[in-house]
């Protein structure tokens, strides 16, 4: 049997750890919210992210996708060797959000170079392995999922349908 003092010490330690984890650690894994990066609020307003999804879950995922897209070396550091000193260190170095949206609605198509059908998720994996000089995330990784959801949010804003082509169709922006 532990004495009263010995019982209190573990309880205080656990409570202290929980408070530190949530309030003081700054580690994303302990926080329910996504880090606010510059220009997110402007992006959110400009692309009507709130229109897509009537709850916070989708917006949080889209925001994390935004962070990964524009600050890849910071938010997907596990999957890239690129650092802030590299000239191309983020998805946004090569792509625009619109590129992602058009890429999404044209994914799951046959790629003659690879000789098979390639999904949007595999494109992301190949980007991490190739241009990002890094490692392949799994299909289930939140990094892949949130980039897809980011692309979905932009595609919704542009009101794209399956197979929409950037050069041939001019989708009207959706305003409410």
């Amino acid at each position, binding site marked *: 049997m532990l004495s009263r003092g010995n019982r209190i010490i573990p309880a205080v330690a656990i409570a202290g750890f929980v408070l530190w984890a949530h309030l003081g650690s700054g580690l994303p894994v302990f926080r329910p919210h996504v880090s606010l990066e510059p220009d997110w609020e402007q992006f959110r307003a400009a692309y009507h992210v709130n229109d897509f999804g009537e709850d916070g879950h*989708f917006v949080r995922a889209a925001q994390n996708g935004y962070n990964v897209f524009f600050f890849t070396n910071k938010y997907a550091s596990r999957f890239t060797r690129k650092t802030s000193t590299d000239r191309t260190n983020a998805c946004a170095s090569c792509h625009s959000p619109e590129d992602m949206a058009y890429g999404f609605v044209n994914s799951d*198509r046959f790629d003659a170079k690879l000789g098979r059908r390639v999904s949007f998720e595999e494109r992301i994996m190949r980007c991490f392995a190739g241009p990002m000089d890094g490692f392949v995330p799994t299909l289930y990784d939140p990094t892949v999922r949130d980039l897809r959801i980011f692309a*979905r949010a932009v595609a919704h804003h542009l009101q*794209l349908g*399956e197979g*929409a082509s950037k050069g041939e169709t001019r989708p009207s922006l959706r305003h409410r």
Partner: protein
Amino acid sequence: MLIFGGLYWLTVQKHAERDQLRLAAVDLTPSCKEKLQGYSLAAAEHYRSPYVRKMNGAWSTVRGYSEEDVRAIQRGCNIVDDLQGHLAKSGSRERWHGDRFVRGGQTTCVHCHQGVGDKQDAAGNRLVGSNNLGASWVMADMYDRFTGMLLPHEWRQMQCYINSSNGFKPNAADDLLRDVTAYSRFLAAALDLKIGNRYPEQGMDEITAAATLRRGDDYVRGAYVYRQKCATCHGPQGFGKVVQGQVLYPALAGPESFSFDSRMNFAKIDTVTPGFICRNMPLGAEGSLENQECRDIAYYLSTLPRPAGDRQGPLVAVWEQLMMIVMPPLMRYAESIGSNGTPQEASH
């Protein structure tokens, strides 16, 4: 070394078989042939949907499909229409052996996703709450309140296999799921659906208790309505109707039916099945049932024995297995008893 070498050889053979299947011409089911011909699916640089032309009066041109894409879409349609390969020459091989992931011999996607996932009336209007697969695709990745997660299209399909088919989960990258996704995406293109828009044909158009006169749900009343409206097709005990190996009407109870974990189980979610019944049943007379009748029927169905899901535990599973053995003969006997208490010939 021999064992590992043998396994490696087997794996290479299986991959080669898959590649052959991907390259093979697809033998469409009659429903898929009609559906895909109606939408003019063919390999070309551009795709223009005749449905959009008919409904909107103008062509919509999008990126076309390669021959590989067309075959994937065709296979996906076949899987939706005939998951277990009852209509295929080589059986489930042409469906990526989809029967590995389901228990029982009846289940296929089209039971819930009627019209091969794209149910329309005679004028071509897509029907409210008809579980359209194209509309599901454009709304994929959204928050799902039943699972509490952002649900990708492939994961939703996995849930269908686990719960609605009382089976097992295919891999997210399995051809079985990818081909159905390809077909769903093609439907979205053919119907000109836009990413992220909520369309009335998506999902079940759920019916809450608030949509009734609030008399309360009653499974006895449900049993009565079931016998009047549903038993002719689905059987007096809900075991479905199979003729010469072809599933004419799916089982709603018993070992061939969906599990307790399915969203179709009224005891789990009390709005989905009533919505499905009211919008899609009885075939040919859709919309003829009152909201309360649909809720009562769904309640009654949830009281019938069926496979336990993962969440019920082994005791419930054993109990349900026992009930599925004991109840059918008892029910037949009860039905055979006339009003004077003397046994009559059962209709089952």
